[in-house]
């Protein structure tokens, strides 16, 4: 694809508060996923594989991890002289300075940046979905239909339509109506939050949106309805395949489990559409004598002496002899010490589960860490926490650092995480 056909913008602004402790120190798109990846690897790799060489990442919440992670863009083949990957935070202008007000405002504030590449089209993506998609095909459809905007849609079960933005189209795929989370949907085509706009058209629409004091400056709520009202040519682009929002603890956990249970759906082994990530520079995994592994993903630097069943382990995880890990996600550098038992847990980076501690063993129990954002007996351990030996933590807990740590607390201390 030629450089000035298209520029991509990834909306990575949200705090992702429904992920609790997992997004305390980093933006949601930086949350680890699937053993080797972070969520943002998916849109970044899709861009790279689609031939898009200029990608802006719009973020204002905890961008440091994302900044270091994306770095020069090299892992995604986005270390370009003219273009590449850019972190785009809010900034001060000579007249005024604003944090991003909404998704549309974030694009509007960076219009000069986009203009610098003089693109025909702008691809707008959200930074919290797991999927593989060739945006070049969508762009071709956009050109072929001479669209002002093309919105990627996916068929969802009729009973879930009330959770999505639903598109009603004519026979040719042109959008005739749009309902945001309708009680009674007229179609089951849901917007995936993936937009291609003809840049000149969008620029005008964004300016109008900006001039409207009542607008919440959001693409779905404001800009798309405004364009539709003005009679713009809005087209849908049908996608079928794996696509999952990982905005909640439960969905993050189950998307990880999909890699084990439905490996062919997302198919990370497909060499024609690789998902890239920054390499941790660790050796191959070592599985000791006496270890047991069943339906589990390992990656670089893991050392397994114990038993791991139906779990996704990130790099440099250690499971000591006699420890048992089941149905869990262990993020980079997590350690499960000898004799510990971990079930249905998401263990943050560098967290240490002390000897003979039990996590999720009893799914019901009382704990000061029981949390409404944890469901389905899933327990989350914040990164860097040292869980006391023999601690007992039931399901549905969000174990976070608290400054008022008492002697009896299951958390012993907090280790720095690199």
């Amino acid at each position, binding site marked *: 694809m030629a450089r000035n056909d298209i520029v991509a913008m990834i909306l990575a602004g949200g705090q992702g508060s429904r992920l609790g402790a997992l997004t305390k120190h980093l933006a949601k798109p930086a949350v680890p996923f699937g053993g080797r990846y972070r969520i943002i690897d998916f849109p970044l790799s899709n861009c790279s594989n689609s031939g898009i060489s200029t990608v802006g990442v719009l973020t204002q919440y905890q961008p440091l991890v994302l900044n270091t992670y994306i770095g020069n863009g090299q892992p995604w083949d986005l270390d370009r002289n003219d273009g590449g990957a850019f972190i785009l935070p809010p900034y001060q202008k000579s007249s005024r300075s604003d944090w991003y007000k909404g998704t549309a405002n974030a694009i509007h504030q960076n219009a000069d940046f986009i203009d610098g590449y003089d693109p025909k089209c702008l691809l707008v993506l959200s930074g919290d979905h797991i999927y593989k998609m060739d945006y070049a095909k969508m762009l071709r459809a956009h050109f072929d239909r001479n669209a002002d905007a093309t919105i990627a849609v996916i068929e969802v079960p009729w009973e879930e339509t009330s959770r999505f933005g639903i598109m009603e189209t004519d026979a040719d795929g042109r959008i005739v109506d749009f309902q945001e989370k309708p009680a009674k949907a007229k179609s089951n085509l849901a917007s995936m939050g993936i937009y291609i706009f003809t840049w000149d058209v969008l620029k005008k629409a964004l300016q109008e949106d900006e001039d409207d004091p009542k607008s919440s400056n959001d693409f779905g709520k404001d800009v798309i309805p405004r364009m539709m009202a003005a009679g713009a040519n809005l087209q849908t682009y049908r996608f079928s395949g794996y696509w999952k929002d990982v905005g909640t603890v439960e969905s993050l956990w189950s998307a990880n489990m999909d890699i084990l249970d439905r490996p062919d759906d997302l198919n990370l082994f497909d060499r024609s559409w690789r998902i890239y990530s920054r390499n941790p520079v660790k050796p*191959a995994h*070592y599985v000791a*004598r006496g270890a047991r592994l069943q339906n589990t993903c390992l990656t670089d630097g893991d050392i397994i002496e114990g038993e791991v069943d139906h779990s996704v382990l990130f790099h440099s995880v250690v499971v000591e002899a006699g420890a048992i890990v089941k149905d869990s996600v262990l993020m980079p550098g997590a350690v499960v010490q000898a004799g510990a038992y971990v079930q249905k847990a998401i263990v943050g980076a560098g967290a240490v589960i002390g000897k003979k501690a039990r996590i999720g063993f009893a799914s019901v129990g009382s704990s000061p860490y029981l949390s409404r954002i944890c469901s389905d007996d899933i327990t989350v351990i914040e990164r860097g926490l040292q869980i006391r030996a023999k601690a007992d933590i039931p399901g549905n807990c969000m174990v976070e650092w608290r400054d008022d740590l008492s002697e009896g607390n299951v958390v012993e201390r907090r280790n720095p995480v690199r």
Partner: protein
Amino acid sequence: MFIDAMGLILAENRRLSLGELTSKRAQAALPFAGRYRLIDFMLSNLVNTGISRVGVVTFNKYRSLMDHLGSGKAWDLSRKESGLFILPPNAQSDSLSSSGDIGDMTAVLDLLRTSHWTHVLVCGANNVFTTTFDDFYKRHVDAGADVSFLYDTDGAEANRSATVLTTDKAGWVKEILLSPESRAGMKVSLDVMLLRRQLLIELLSDAIARGEHVLSLDRILRRHTHLRILAQPFEGVCLRIHSVESYFAATMRVLEKPVRKSLFWSALPVYTKVKDEAPSHYCCGCEVSNSMISDGCRIHGRVEDSMVFRAVTIGARSSLKNCIVFQDAYISEGCELENVILDKACFLRPGVKLVGQAAYPVVIGKGAVV
């Protein structure tokens, strides 16, 4: 810190042979320890020492090295002016000269002359260890040596054609012996030498003038008895790869905890080409014991005391013991392998049985269908 040196890696030791494993690849490009090539260790040592210009000298089979090293990005050696230089033999005439060996040293001389660093670290690639050369450099400079050699006394492991040093008590070299009969307890060179760039230029120019075409610094130095040569001991774990047998044995040693720790967990990263494989999937029913397995694999069967490279499939009811499996190999169901080295992209049909001896492993060539 503040190291004023460039690096030079000799990718091929002409005194050694690794049979079929190196028939189509340079020795330095030999896969090792699951996700590496031999050269990765020395390159990482140089980079971790803070060296930013490295020449890789190769007289043939340089395509294997070019493919692996690429632009040098994986080692952070893709630089504007310094960085990584692959030095293939020089072909200036309009048809390839049949005495291509001459290029061995002229390309090296060109690189040395266009560099500005004071010192050069000249290294082989057949010895695997993880370190920085900070102390080596400091002692060399402090002692006012002309040349420093790194050695260890792990003589029993050394190959026949090793270079052995005899020294006085202070460590100054008295003699450089090439391939002596007995080596037990002696100081055997690790093929790491440090000297001033100008001195190296003089030594090489002199050697070319004498009609030598092969860059063998040990040999050249023996003639220059006036130089003050310091032998410095290396205290860590070093694996010497000089034959198929020693390659096999070294791989098995990597499975030992102290060796793994020394090579990979010393806080010094070992860089290699990134392949972006998916995490490995250990499927239901697999049994894995005392093995290292790399990313991108699908393990259905049994793996014991083995080293498995990237993107290997091991079928159900297959069993591997004491094996080395290079990347992209596919082992169908019900195979039985013991003491086998499977080269890249081999395909084993269901039910294949291959058994070698630890001292004489069976080697299956690249891309073979068995």
